[in-house]
């Protein structure tokens, strides 16, 4: 094959199928590949035939293979289960146990789709990869950097999950705009969005007793008001599932893994005027050395909020964010992504 072979990551969904079709029609040499990431039958407690948000089902593979056959392109399923468990599933669980709320999609993009898949593509002789993500990638000759922009249709934009990609990774990804509906926003390996049930089942498989995660529910001043089945059942800002009667609505303010405590309080207690962001990856600009104005997203569905970014480390990998208006439910473990309009400046993890 020529050096210009492109490996398309095909999920069986519409986006990646359209990408493969467009490249094929454009006369490129295209190979379709599906990543086998997780065995959905592995945790029998939560295995279900009609769950939503499932990755790597036989139906997905059938769909992807069917598209590849229609296009007449070579197609392979590659087994990344070991790496996915080590670099996405285990950190996902560890984050919950550390009192944070993780986003495995970002880890998957960083370590699987734009790392192992890229390595696999190069290994088989492909120069570039294409995925079905909603984002725009362009080369800026002045700054000599690859820039990332939000997708034209902002409702489908996926740059929040792509904030960990470095310049080398972006150089190999073909930014392909598509006009179809986005894939599911659910965590792909967790059936029906029940991540706590997933973690409970994983613990059972690993022989971890439920008593090891149980603890107390307390108020901000330390008063014990109830008990809970594990910190991984709670995320900052959560209202439901506390099982405590009170005159006004109560929310999770924080989870404290060391003491296994879940701290609750009023809605106003959730507001934060500032936060620190660690392991910041700069995309469209080099690491800043002076304060910088930006819009900051603290969740995928968050409307980016105006803020000032203050470097908290000399190399720009740690940033203090001061919001113009206090933000509700700043959640440790989630991503914080910095924008200037459509331009993705960079992003990192909320401390």
């Amino acid at each position, binding site marked *: 094959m020529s050096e210009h*072979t492109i490996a398309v990551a095909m999920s069986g969904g519409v986006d990646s199928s359209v990408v493969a079709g467009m490249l094929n029609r454009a006369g490129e040499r295209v190979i379709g590949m*599906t990543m086998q990431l997780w065995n959905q039958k592995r945790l029998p407690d939560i295995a279900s035939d009609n769950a939503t948000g499932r990755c790597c089902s036989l139906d997905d593979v059938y769909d992807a293979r069917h598209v590849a056959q229609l296009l007449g392109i070579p197609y*392979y*399923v590659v087994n990344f289960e070991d790496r996915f468990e080590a670099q996405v599933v285990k950190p996902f669980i560890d984050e919950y146990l550390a009192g944070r709320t993780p986003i495995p999609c970002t880890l998957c993009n960083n370590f699987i789709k734009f790392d192992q898949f890229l*390595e*696999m593509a*190069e*290994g*088989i*002789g492909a120069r570039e990869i294409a995925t079905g993500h909603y984002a725009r990638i362009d080369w800026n000759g002045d700054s000599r950097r690859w820039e990332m922009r939000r997708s034209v249709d902002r409702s489908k934009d996926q740059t929040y999950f792509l904030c960990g990609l470095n310049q080398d990774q972006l150089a190999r990804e073909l930014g392909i705009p598509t006009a179809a509906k986005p894939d599911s926003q659910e965590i792909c390996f967790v059936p029906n969005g029940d991540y706590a049930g997933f973690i409970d089942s994983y613990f059972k498989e690993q022989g971890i007793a439920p008593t090891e995660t149980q603890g107390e529910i307390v108020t901000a001043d330390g008063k014990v008001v109830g008990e809970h089945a594990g910190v991984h059942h709670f995320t900052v800002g959560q209202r439901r599932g506390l099982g405590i009667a009170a005159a006004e609505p109560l929310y999770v303010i924080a989870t404290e893994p060391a003491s296994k405590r879940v701290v609750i309080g009023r809605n106003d207690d959730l507001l934060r005027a500032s936060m620190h962001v660690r392991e910041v990856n700069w995309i469209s600009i080099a690491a800043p050395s002076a304060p910088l104005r930006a819009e900051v997203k603290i969740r995928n569905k968050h409307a980016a909020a105006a803020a000032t970014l203050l470097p908290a480390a000399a190399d720009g990998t740690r940033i203090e964010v001061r919001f113009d208006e206090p933000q509700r439910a700043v959640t440790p473990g989630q991503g914080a992504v910095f924008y200037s309009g459509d331009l993705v400046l960079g992003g990192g993890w909320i401390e």
Partner: protein
Amino acid sequence: MNRYYFDHNATTPASPEVFQAMAPLMMTVFGNASSIHQFGQEARGELDRARRSVAAMLGAKAEEIVFTGGGTEADNMAIFGAGGHVITTTIEHPAVLQAAQQLPEVTFVKVDRQGLVDPQAVRAAIRPDTKLISVMHVNNELGVIQPLREIAEIAHDAGVLFHSDGVQAMGKLPVNAGELGVDLYSISAHKIYGPKGMGALYIRKGTELRPLLYGGPHERKMRAGTENVPGAAGFGRAAEWVIAESRAEAARLSVLRDRLEQRILTRVTGAHVNGSAAPRVGNTSNIRFDGIDSEPLLIGLDLKGFAVSSGSACSSGATEPSHVLAAIGLTREQARSSVRFSLGRSNTEAQVDALIDAVVEVVSRLRKLAPAYV
């Protein structure tokens, strides 16, 4: 792009003679072999002729051959047909392994680092309620040949039936059921340039076995279902090729296989032949490349036109580390870095040399990308 096929242990193309033997039986001689009329008699004649050819290939009598829908069905007939406790090994084909796992009483005997079964370990596993011992003749992944005669003697001393999955032995080794001492022996047509969906179980005369399928009185009540006459005729023609020509072909392939192994071991550092110290059939080579993931190696070779295989395909089509390589003591990493080359009739010396060049090229590209390997 030229494409070269080095995966003959997976399947083989039907030969032109096989195809020609089958074609008229689809439309012209189409009768049901169990029918009384002339149409049926013609079909019966073809079926009987095929049975004689397949029997001759095994040095058996025609009435000792039961046609099945493939090697897997023949294996399942043997495993489920004897009743009682069954002894088998950890390196069997899934057709035996998965079937045996359904049994209430089964013992899996381990193999050594070369993939060989120790007959004394089989003897030690025999219990008063043991009814069947099943040990494959030739392993599909390694090509290792098991000591069947010794195990057959042990089985018969204990009054236990002896089955062997001979799917990978046919055409690669001279096989005589009587000399091997097997009571039951599974074979498959598509591994010897015959049609897919066609197999047979040799059942030594006098052996009592329960059928797997119930229905009409076909195959002496051992396998219900209208006989696959075109499939049988193709199988018969393939067996005639085995009888006449496979010995010379096996010798030719053995020279090519040795050339492949010697040149790869010379040109690629950190390459090892799995099972090399055991007796092996001459067409199979299972090579481990240190620091290499077999998945991109296999795909990289395929994109250059060379078809090889690794591990076993799971239901999605992704590869999983081989249970055979785990059974001979390889780590998960080592099992994942092994590739199987299996040669056959279409392969020439020029093809083998092209394959060697392609392996050297893809392996060195992969090692450049994964600098962990030194």
